[in-house]
């Protein structure tokens, strides 16, 4: 919760303006390679839109490691793989859950929704790991159902989509299923 009050202070205090301006500049600088990583993924998605994927590219590394993409130790392909797995899973979910997630992603992607739903005044791609982390905490403990959906829906989608991949296993010392056999 400390980070939230700090953010509020910055937002309303003189420093806040600086942060927003500074964030904007960082956003510009970062944008180029992000767009490439996301856009150059030739996977055909069933549910996630390009806008959703831009948001997720910021959110996923923080959710998994507490760090922004560049410091998370995750390769861009790994993040893209998480997105592929999430997409395949969401495509198999019931209508109600897909509708809930659609509403959530649409809100997260727009500036208005980002401020209301996430309390984020800067864009996702320029928000710090701490800022995104406090968004997650707020979602987890919110009394609004949509935000609980945001936390519990995205949390399990993201982490299970990562830890079902062999690339993640080496990093945690899991040797994988016992034998390299494919069933009897």
């Amino acid at each position, binding site marked *: 919760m400390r980070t939230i009050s700090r953010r509020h202070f910055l937002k309303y205090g003189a420093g806040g303006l600086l942060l927003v301006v500074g964030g904007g500049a960082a956003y510009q600088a970062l944008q180029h390679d992000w767009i490439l990583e996301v856009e150059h993924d030739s996977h055909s998605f*069933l549910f996630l839109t390009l806008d959703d994927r831009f948001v997720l590219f910021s959110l996923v590394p*923080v*959710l*998994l*490691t*507490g*760090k922004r993409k560049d410091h998370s130790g995750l390769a861009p392909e790994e993040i893209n793989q998480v997105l592929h*797995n999430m997409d*395949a*899973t969401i*495509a*198999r*979910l*019931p*209508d*109600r*859950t897909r509708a809930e997630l659609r509403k959530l992603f649409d809100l997260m992607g727009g500036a208005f929704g980002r401020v209301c739903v996430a309390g984020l005044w800067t864009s996702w791609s320029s928000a710090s*790991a701490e800022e995104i*982390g406090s968004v*997650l905490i707020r979602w*987890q*403990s919110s009394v609004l*159902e949509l935000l*609980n*959906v945001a936390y*519990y*829906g995205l*949390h*399990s*989608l993201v*982490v*299970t989509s*990562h*830890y*079902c*991949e062999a690339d*993640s*296993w080496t*990093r*945690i*010392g*899991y040797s994988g*299923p*016992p*034998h390299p*056999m*494919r*069933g*009897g």
Partner: protein
Amino acid sequence: MGSDGVNLGMVSEKGHLDASELDEGAVLEADVLIIGSGAGGGICAEALAERNIRVVVVEEGPFKKTADFTMREKEAFQDLYFECGGRRTKDKAIGIFQGRAVGGSTTVNWTASFRTPEQTLRYWSNEFGLSGFSAEDLAPWFDRVEKRLNISPWLPAPNENNAIIARGAAALDWSYGTVPRNVRGCADLGLCGQGCPIGAKQSMLVTTIPRAMELGATVISRARAARLLLRQGRVEGAVLEPLDSLGRPKRTIQLEVRAPLVIVAAGGIGSPALLLRSATPDPDRLIGSRTFLHPTVVVTGAMPQQVAGYRGAPQTVYSDHFLWRDGIEGRMGFKIEALAIQPSLFSGLMMRHGAEHQSFMQRINDTQGSIMLLRDGFNEESPGGRVGLDAFDYPELDYTVNDYLWEGVREAYLRASEMLFAAGANNIQLWHFDAPSLTSWTQAKQFIANLQLKPLSTGLFSAHVMGGCSMGADPRRSVVDSRGAHHHVKNLYVIDGSLFPTSLGTNPQLTIYAIAAKLANELAERHWPAPSSFQKRESAMNPISGASL
């Protein structure tokens, strides 16, 4: 296969029709339609097929075979679980795991096979007026299904994840025991939750379903029973929706199965949902109510030694020391078992994100996982949840966690912590959003006493959905009678875990097997009485006129 208007070219192998491959509608006929192919449906299918009764089994999930099981959680959750393993109660507070494939939850379950506790059976008879459900009544049925599914206590040494439970319990002088399992030639791989890759687990997928098919039963996979055909107080079959390869309804094509007798075996949540969608008579609004979960909490221990809880049979040691701690109707008791530590499952259940999540994942090898399954439904303060339908006619479970249950959770946290420290844990972790790692029993005791327990902060899950079509003598308090027969609709039966009037206090599969074997055989004898083998065949071939319905 006794079908009308079905393009037989679509039957991919003898007795199996994959509805996702259909491009036109069809009507099929049967003596008995069974909806759901899990513990209840599988046992019924074999019992009836053995009597030459023509059976069609409808299953919403895919027909995966042993050779299809990749051992990877990635495919398993997508292919074999409801909502890819991410199902939750309405307020998101409780995660729910249920199998959705031929074999139902038995295809993915962890093989623990316990008889129903006698306390539970006595409570059912006394409180709900059940007849034929005493321990003596059920004993021959338990004997029979235990033999059929090769159920016996697990003799090889438990893996370290389970051995720690035994060590902790022994150090504290608690009772504990060895888990009986339904396996034949188990290689101790520990992948039960992803579908057994060598066919050792004696799930419905490798036992009763193939046997029923050999005897002439038809299995329609990837077809969801949308609603029952009800007319003038009796059931006449069901309308099915074929699903596409993503498991979503293809609303353009409709299948129908006509049968003079229908057994609903779609499991907890699934069975009441079907009855609700069909507008089944329900004057007292009982359908879907009294749905129980064995709400389950997790405590993990960071051990000084390697645990590798992903390897070896997942559940081989248990403790019932606190199951009846305060009498049957007293404070909520719990069973202690092990949590299989598969990385994806483990990551999804963990009440953390970011750096902390990652560091727990990095300690996966040294982590012991204990789960405490709380028995719900034995007290007025434990009414269970209610299954309803959303705007898309899809089920949703509303389950309120109240103070009565939180008291049980607190005791479960306390005892599991005590047990893990007694077994030598360096520190323990309650799977609660606000709990830090606790480094001593004294610290844990104090912390747990003051911990605020509330939904969403407290990690809760269930792999045991029960009730929702509860069984009882009184039509004002129950949906079906002691035979599994619906109180208001003729020839409509419910035979699966949804007919339990409370939870069990133990893992449910064996109870479902025994009850299903009993009810299916008794049903067959009532509707197709004492036939000579010739007459039996006749009646089976001539369902409407021949059966005494």
